[in-house]
């Protein structure tokens, strides 16, 4: 990055803050405060997405040619930081950060034209169909299959952990189009532009926090057009891997997010007693745990800045995306654990009604403490989804220990 690539970020940051002040309505702000996982409340977040799009800011990491703002990394980071500091809901990653970049890389001109504008604008929302009941860590063993019948593919099988499928109008998924051979061969990457199809059933799954976030999706002779394939037929694994690297390493600005969580813990600790008449924030054990996490976040920050400058698909980007995934997700889990320990037993109160955007039910006690437990529970999934921490370590080991 050269000097002239970097605009005056102080002015830019002020512009972002002004924009948020002017445009974000109460419901969007409430959705930001009530976000308890990587997946914020759907409707207000998509409205925020569309408002950002009107400003040309919905996809900070997208290149200019696809409608991104063409910002250098430092500016993207400044943007994320301002949005986080204002507690805006993070935009949903499935379309913008996952299938979007894959379509740019592998899509035909027709596919780009058909899908990218709706992703950028927030008109469409995509769910990810990767995992299956028997294909989790071992994703390549997937068995949901698509057969050519005339001028259609016919899909049979099921997908699980499809986040927000009950809100989605589009879906990208991996299907087996050719049996036999190595498991990675014969997989195709499909783009479905309509989920309202005969034979397709979506069933929400209730999570540990008592709310639906994930879904099962069942396919019973679902017909889709032949041009649904992204990339070559039977070579969907290449697309899938490229996308996973984005999911793991480049989907969002983790450091900005985590610093916001730490700020929230710091505020609670200042208001909470230590049981002996002092403030918890003055307790050396609390301070040690907190500062250790600040160190981990600084490392996440440094590594993700480096990753952002890498060409995705280069040999080092795979292992580095795995490293970010491990470091960031394990750090987040420790942050969430410190949060419930800081809040103490008030974190045990189940407050499903108060967590709904637009709810008339006020939170019990300080509103700051409302989300601590749902985040702790929901983010246990962070070391499982997108490839478990164990699988990420295997990926790194393969490169690190290669003869």
């Amino acid at each position, binding site marked *: 990055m050269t000097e002239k690539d970097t605009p005056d970020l102080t002015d830019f940051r002020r512009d972002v803050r002004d924009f948020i002040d002017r445009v974000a309505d109460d419901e969007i702000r409430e959705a930001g405060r009530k976000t308890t996982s990587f997946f914020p409340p759907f409707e207000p977040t998509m409205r925020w997405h569309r408002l950002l799009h009107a400003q040309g800011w919905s996809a900070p990491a997208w290149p200019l040619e696809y409608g991104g703002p063409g910002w250098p990394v430092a500016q993207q980071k400044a943007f994320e930081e301002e949005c986080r500091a204002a507690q805006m809901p993070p935009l949903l990653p499935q379309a913008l950060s996952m299938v979007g970049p894959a379509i740019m890389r592998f899509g035909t001109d027709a596919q780009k034209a058909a899908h990218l504008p709706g992703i950028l604008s927030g008109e469409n929302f995509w769910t990810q169909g990767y995992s299956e009941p028997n294909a989790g860590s071992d994703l390549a063993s997937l068995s949901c299959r698509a057969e050519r019948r005339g001028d259609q593919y016919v899909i049979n099988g099921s997908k699980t952990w499809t986040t927000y499928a009950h809100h989605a109008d589009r879906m990208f998924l991996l299907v087996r189009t050719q049996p036999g051979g190595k498991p990675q061969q014969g997989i195709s990457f499909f783009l479905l532009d309509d989920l309202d199809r005969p034979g397709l059933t979506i069933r929400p799954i209730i999570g540990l926090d008592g709310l639906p976030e994930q879904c099962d999706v069942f396919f019973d002779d679902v017909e889709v057009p032949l041009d649904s394939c992204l990339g070559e037929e039977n070579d969907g694994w290449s697309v899938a891997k490229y996308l996973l690297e984005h999911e793991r390493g480049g989907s969002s600005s983790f450091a900005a997010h985590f610093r916001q969580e730490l700020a929230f813990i710091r505020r609670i600790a200042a208001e909470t007693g*230590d049981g002996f008449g002092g403030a918890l924030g003055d307790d050396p054990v609390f301070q040690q745990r907190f500062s250790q996490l600040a160190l981990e976040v600084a490392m996440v920050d440094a590594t993700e800045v480096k990753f952002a400058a890498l060409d995705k698909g280069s040999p080092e980007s795979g292992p580095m995306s795995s490293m970010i995934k491990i470091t960031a997700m394990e750090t987040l889990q420790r942050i969430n654990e410190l949060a419930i*320990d800081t809040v103490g037993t008030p974190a045990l109160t189940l407050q499903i009604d108060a967590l709904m955007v637009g709810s008339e039910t006020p939170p019990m006690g300080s509103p700051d403490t409302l989300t601590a437990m749902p985040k702790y529970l929901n983010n246990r999934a962070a070391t499982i989804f997108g490839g478990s921490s164990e699988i990420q370590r295997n990926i790194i080991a393969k490169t690190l220990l290669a003869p």
Partner: protein
Amino acid sequence: MSSLSAEMRAMLDDSVDKFLRDHYSFDAGRRLVESTAGYSPAHWQQFAELGWLGIPFAEADDGLGGTVADTLGLMRRFGRALVVEPYLGVVGLAGQAIAHSSHAQLKASLLPGLIAGEILPVLAWEEMQSRGNPAYVETRAQATAEGWRIDGEKITVLNAPQATHVIVSARSAGEIADNAGMELFVVAMDTPGVTVEGFETVDGHRAARVRFEAVAVTTAQRLNAEGAGGALLQRAIDAGCLMIAAEALGAMETLLDKTIAYTQTRKQFGMPIAGFQVLQHRMVDMYIALTNAENLFEQTVAEHGDKATVPAPAAALLKAGISQSARYIGQQAIQLHGGIGMTDELDVGHYFKRLTALSLLFGGADTHLKRYWRASSGR
């Protein structure tokens, strides 16, 4: 450690096992969690008939003549079955505060009803700023012409929405975190000025914030000699800590069993995932965490279970150790189950949430490690 005969204890364990087998499948437990009361009053009556509500009380008070140590087999089994009946709150916390009261008349008026399942007293001790230290009490007890007036707010009062009486800690003298100058009053829930803001907890239990506004009580409702409620309260909470240690062990051993069984059947990469060394080591670490906690628990109970209180350093280390093991085993059970462990449908997540709650109740690991340092340095 126990005042009951080995035969009696074995009989109790068998009766608990049989009851839970017959009435407490995971689905049956979920139905209780979803019910308005949040437990089964019919089960509670059976607990009374089976003698379980009388285990740690003297025969003279209609009890079985045991101690808190004699409830631990039951609590461990309750942990395995995710029992939601208010045994910890009523028999443990409130029951121990009443049983060791110096006020014989008040004790005699309450214990038989508790043991018969007719009244459900609970203990309100925790406050917003107390962080597991029972001596930290802002709630005031001011002397009036007729007795006392109580003002203050208690948080996370276990089982309060189900209770008939609340035992409240209030300060009549001393500084904010002094053990001296504390009173424990027994207050009927329908007393004017008592407000209960009940809620479900993430682990499917019930608790409440309880506010006391100009609540009038008499000295006859006080469990302790003036200003001496602190020791009685600590004794009740230490009993609660032993009981949740047993419950947590029950939940932890169940989670380890379930995790081993799952990894032996779940196949990825053409083999059961239990065949992968990284997962084998993880399960061994879970086993080590469980076994060390269990051994510390058994030793603490054997050495101190029959005494009036477990010495503070030992009690603090036990609660810290149980809290840490509960976290580790709960988290790793989810990790090794993968996505399915994150669902409401599977029982694993519910054990995880119960263990999360038990690790926070009565102060978490950090709180108790601090307590250990203070107690072992004579403070």
